[in-house]
């Protein structure tokens, strides 16, 4: 019985071992079946190539505005926005008659102003004096005249002067007599006092005589412009200045304005009312139409093509970081017109959104006025972890990747899957550029998997 039991036990043991053997294979097969098969890739560290495209137009480096005196009537306009013109071309024609009347009005206005108002700005004015007590017979100059030093300004009444001088002489004689008498009467004090008077009167007389000698004229003491005449014909001169002369006269603002306006009007009249273009190029702005009255601002703005072509555009805020002055970009304007490696010359913040950018363009194919596009690819300075699209499950700007760690297991090398999260910065080429990935560069990333993956699963890499 024992032998039977023993031999049965031996047989059972054999069966047990056999079963284990079979299960070995079976379990391996089952587990292998359940194990996802994955393909892997590594993390590439690359700069993001960011493509920037900005639209804009080709303009001339220099914009020439054309101003016309305001208040004139336009009879004809020959150009419009976008017209291409050469230097000296007719832009518009003014109504000549209207112009003439406006000019006349202006001149009159100036005259009147000069007469009345304060035509001269405050400045250095030299006063001209003459002996007081004489009658003015004639004023030779008027306000605003240019005079030279020594030019007669006022003529005095000579008859009046003569009579004055005679009277003075008579008075002097009698005063002298009186004095002599005083000396004789030993009244030296009174005599001295009187002497003084006499001397003074004598001086005055001398002065009057000198005036008589040079014909009773008051001369300007300096060259300049007569800014004020302070006396009229027929008045008696007084102590104060009779005229003011300014060697560096400045017209008061108002007078100046009037003067300039008259100049402009005269200029406009030069070319029979035609306003011609000062430069060749393209009209970028034409503000006037036939029948309008000219106004204050520029009537035309001409892109001066000889000054060079410039691409201008507005760079939106989010792209601004990729461009900076000095970068080489490529400008292309429809068709095959393309200029490569043009340098950005200017970037300024325009109040509001974006930034104005200017890129001088040297190309024969690209013309003024073309709509153009600035294209450039900028490599970021930083290198980002980049992974192909298929490795990352993206949700908005967050992404999840799976990676594999190797370990020594009982069956040899085992590969376990872990998940890691990251943020997607942007797409570059056919990869995502990621930040916050937190994995070492040698980490093996899962690319494709035959089954859904979860953290901690064991997998088989292909």
């Amino acid at each position: 019985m024992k032998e039977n039991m023993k031999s049965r036990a031996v047989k059972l043991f054999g069966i047990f071992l056999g079963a284990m053997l079979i299960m070995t294979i079976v379990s391996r097969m089952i587990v292998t079946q359940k194990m996802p098969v994955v393909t892997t890739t590594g993390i590439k560290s690359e700069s993001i190539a960011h493509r920037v495209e900005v639209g804009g137009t080709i303009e001339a480096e220099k914009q020439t505005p054309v101003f016309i005196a305001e208040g004139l009537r336009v009879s004809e306009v020959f150009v419009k926005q976008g017209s291409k013109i050469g230097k000296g071309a007719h832009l518009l024609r003014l109504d000549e008659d209207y112009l003439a009347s406006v000019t006349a009005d202006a001149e009159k206005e100036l005259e009147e102003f000069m007469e009345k108002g304060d035509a001269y700005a405050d400045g250095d004015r030299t006063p001209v004096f003459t002996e007081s007590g004489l009658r003015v017979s004639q004023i030779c100059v008027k306000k605003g005249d240019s005079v030279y030093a020594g030019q007669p300004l006022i003529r005095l009444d000579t008859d009046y002067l003569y009579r004055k001088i005679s009277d003075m002489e008579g008075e002097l004689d009698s005063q002298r007599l009186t004095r002599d008498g005083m000396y004789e009467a030993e009244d030296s004090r009174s005599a001295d006092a009187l002497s003084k008077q006499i001397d003074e009167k004598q001086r005055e007389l001398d002065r009057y005589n000198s005036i008589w000698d040079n014909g009773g004229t008051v001369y300007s003491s300096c060259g300049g412009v007569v800014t004020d005449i302070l006396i009229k014909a027929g008045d008696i001169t007084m102590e104060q200045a009779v005229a003011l002369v300014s060697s560096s006269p400045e017209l008061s603002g108002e007078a100046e304005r009037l003067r300039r306006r008259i100049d402009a009007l005269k200029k406009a009249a030069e070319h029979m009312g035609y306003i011609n273009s000062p430069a060749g190029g393209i009209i970028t702005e034409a503000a006037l139409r036939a029948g309008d009255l000219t106004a204050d601002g520029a009537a035309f703005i001409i892109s001066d093509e000889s000054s060079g072509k410039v691409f201008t555009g507005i760079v939106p805020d989010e792209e601004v970081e990729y461009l900076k002055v000095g970068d080489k970009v490529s400008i292309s304007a429809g068709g095959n017109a393309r200029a490569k490696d043009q340098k950005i010359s200017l970037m300024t913040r325009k109040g509001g959104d974006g930034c104005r950018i200017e890129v001088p363009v040297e190309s024969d194919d690209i013309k003024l006025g073309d709509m153009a596009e600035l294209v450039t690819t900028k490599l970021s300075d930083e290198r980002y972890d980049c992974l192909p699209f298929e490795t990352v499950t993206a949700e908005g700007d967050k992404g999840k990747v799976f990676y594999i760690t190797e370990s020594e297991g009982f069956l040899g090398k085992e590969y376990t899957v872990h998940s890691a999260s990251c943020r997607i910065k942007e797409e570059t080429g056919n990869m995502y550029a990621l930040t916050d990935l937190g994995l070492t560069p040698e980490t093996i990333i899962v690319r494709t998997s035959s089954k859904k993956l979860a953290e901690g699963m064991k997998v088989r890499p292909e």
Partner: protein
Amino acid sequence: MRKKAEGLPLYIIMAVLCTAVLFPVILAVILPFQAHTELKDTLSPLVNFTGKYSRIDLLPQYPSAENFKELLVYSPEFYRVFWNSLLMVGGILLFQTLVAVPAAWAFARAEFKGRRLLFNIYVIFMLMPFQVTMLSQYLVLDGMGLMNRRLAVILPAVFSAFPVFLIYRGFADIPRDVADSARIDGANEWQVLRYIGLPLGKSGILACVVISFLDLWNMVEQPLTFLRDKALYPLSLYLPTLGADRGELLLASAAVTLIPAVFVFVIGQEELERGIIASALKE
């Protein structure tokens, strides 16, 4: 006539004793058949002590084989270590026997000067715990380039002194004349061993095999020291790598580990007893 005891009190004591002795084993067999939910009460306090102690359902409410399924179907690594164990133990047993039988025969039959001394050396080294010779064995194995290979475990065990000792006991009982007469009849020593020694000493050899198997199926220190790759571990080392946090798997694999041992025990119990007795009677 020996008085047989009235028995009952003694029987009861024995019964209690046996139950107490078997209790851990019963647990080891029952627990794996419990479902995860029940095992949670038992195992989770070990992992995460939150004031609740381990509770054991002696009779599972929902017996299930899910732990075994988990182990036997979904853990191919278990088979790896199982066959590792079997391979190593089987290899050791085979060569151990091949080496020890002749040596034991020589000890039992020969009479040469150094015999006693050599035998005593064997016995002395048999007595030493592994750790004493651990270092020196490591150096030798390392020098041979066998570290981290199964041979590092197999070879020293093959040349162990213990089987020689046990089998020697088995041979020592054979009367000298039997063997001598055979040789006079013209047999050489190998034939004497083969035709006389082996049959007569069979029980000793089997006892040695059984005892060695039970010891080797269990071995922990040698593989722990000499093997590094987990892929080479025997079953006895795989079990400790599962902690209480994978307790279900551990219980199931422990139960499976028991099975070969039980088989061997059942098959070889008689020889085992005989061998134990034989090794005791004479010294």
